């Protein structure tokens, strides 16, 4: 009986795992296949070619979109780490009038659904003249409430002796934060970093609203419009190739840092 359940368990898991992996392998394979072989289950073909990829490069400025996405995701992640850890430090370790009000503000703001602010934020960006610019993509995403809460919680648990000793040596709070606390905070830096980076890399609704010029688009937006706008024609291989280029950087990072990804993103659900 025990062995039977065990074998059944493995069979079920394997089938389930295949259901999760096979579609991605199929996508990778379809991006390389000639059109008449795409509607088949086989993952390998003798007629593999890079024609789908070259079609993508010919029809849309995808290299530019890769650059845009990288720039936007990296700058907003860096900014979230610096600014949120600063607020987290102030809320956890400094005493000042209004501190608790600011922490309550952070908790309250986190409950506002993003869709509520979509229209007025768009209008604000139009008024500031930021449409079709990096500013529209980066600046509204420079702070993270979830990041502040995670940093505050972590910094609260670090020993006060660290701060006292550093103060005696004449360290400013900025040096304490960035030279003493940061090196001790790798787990939270990784967590907040991954959540922010993945969120930014995959974001599609906001860019669709504030970016119209092809040269300013991010990857998810360009790949979506390539598909929806009919630019890919009926070339499924080209659509799959574009989707592959959007997925690949994240998949590669995921393969190397799987454990961090899973732990970080699971936390994002519990906190957010």
């Amino acid at each position, binding site marked *: 009986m025990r062995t039977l359940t065990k074998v059944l368990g493995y069979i079920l898991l394997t089938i389930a795992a295949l259901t999760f992996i096979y579609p991605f392998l199929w996508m990778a394979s379809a991006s390389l296949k000639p059109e008449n072989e795409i509607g088949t289950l086989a993952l390998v073909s003798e007629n593999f070619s890079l024609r789908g990829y070259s079609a993508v490069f010919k029809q849309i400025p995808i290299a530019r979109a890769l650059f845009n996405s990288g720039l936007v995701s990296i700058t907003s992640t860096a900014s979230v780490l610096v600014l949120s850890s600063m607020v987290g430090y102030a809320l956890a370790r*400094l005493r000042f009038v209004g501190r608790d009000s600011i922490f309550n503000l952070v908790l309250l703001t986190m409950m506002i*659904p993003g869709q*509520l602010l979509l229209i007025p934020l768009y209008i604000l960006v139009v008024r500031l003249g930021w449409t079709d610019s990096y500013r529209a993509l980066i600046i509204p995403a420079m702070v993270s409430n979830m990041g502040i809460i995670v940093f505050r919680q972590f910094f609260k648990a670090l020993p006060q002796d660290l701060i006292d000793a550093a103060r005696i040596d004449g360290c400013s709070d900025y040096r304490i934060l960035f030279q003493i606390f940061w090196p001790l905070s790798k787990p939270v830096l990784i967590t907040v970093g991954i959540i922010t980076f993945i969120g930014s890399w995959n974001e599609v609704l906001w860019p669709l609203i504030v970016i119209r010029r092809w040269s300013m688009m991010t990857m998810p937006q360009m790949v979506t419009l390539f*598909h929806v706008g009919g630019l890919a024609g009926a070339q499924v291989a080209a659509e799959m190739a574009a989707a592959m280029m959007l997925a690949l950087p994240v998949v590669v990072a995921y393969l190397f840092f799987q454990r961090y990804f899973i732990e970080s993103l*699971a936390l994002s659900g519990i906190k957010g």
Partner: protein
Amino acid sequence: MPEIAEIDPVRGRQPLFGRLAEQYRMSDKTGYVMVLPYVLHFLLFTAYPLIFAFVLVFCRWDIVTPMEFIGIRNIQRLFRDATFWTAVINTLRFLALHIPLQIVLSLLIAVILNGPIKFRSFFRGAFFLPFVISGAVVTILWQQLYSTDAGILNLILTRIGMQPVPWLTDPAWAIYSIAIMATWKNMGFYIVLFLAGLQNVPPELYEAASIDGANRYQQFWRITLPLLQPVMLLVVILSTIGGFSLFIEPFVMTGGGPAESTLSVVLYLYKQAFQFLRMGYAATIGFALAIMIFLVTFIQRRLLDTDQPA
């Protein structure tokens, strides 16, 4: 570390303003500098848009011509707008399949993974993969898999002797096809939540139960499930919020069709704002969406509070 004095021993209790001034004098000024960027960002990108969204509810505005105050007409319109309610009902239909499917499947896999299993981290990693990948990629891929004539899902169905399914082309099927895809995309995430919940169940409970002669199924129904209730609630809340936030899926796969059967609230908001330039009405939909999300989360949290033992 300077203590913030509450009552001065010599001068006694001071008036409120004097106390605040005193506390401010004792405050760490660096704290203000450190939170300043956040506060400015909050004022410009959260507080101002929030107030502006509220003003927009009472206005008609196409961005080009001047804003016009129209009282509560946007709200009246919302209640009479059959298309908006279709979008709400579509969301409920989506959730009616998505939530039970998500809970049953991810709990089943989590329970198996929680046992003495080899390659656990491989399996967990495989299930989690779709969750890290952009929704744009997942929808573009699944639209291809779902294709009625050329999709491999129908190819597999016909191979095993079943009828092909009009996944995205039939109004009766389309929203459920999207629900299945969403379940697939998020399952790894919920498996991890359930695994964490399962690991929090004290093993003594199972030992005690098996001494009392309870078999494994009884143990599951009487011990595991009741103790997993908080995780269950989290899963329901998060997938409900996810359901109300559906956008890229119908945007890419169906454009809201066929016959508005996959129109989501956010897609409707997007269309009102950027196809018809009705900013006031779109902001009203935004508020309605926020209120629905609050209500659902509030009710679900209430349900947990009353059910929790002691």
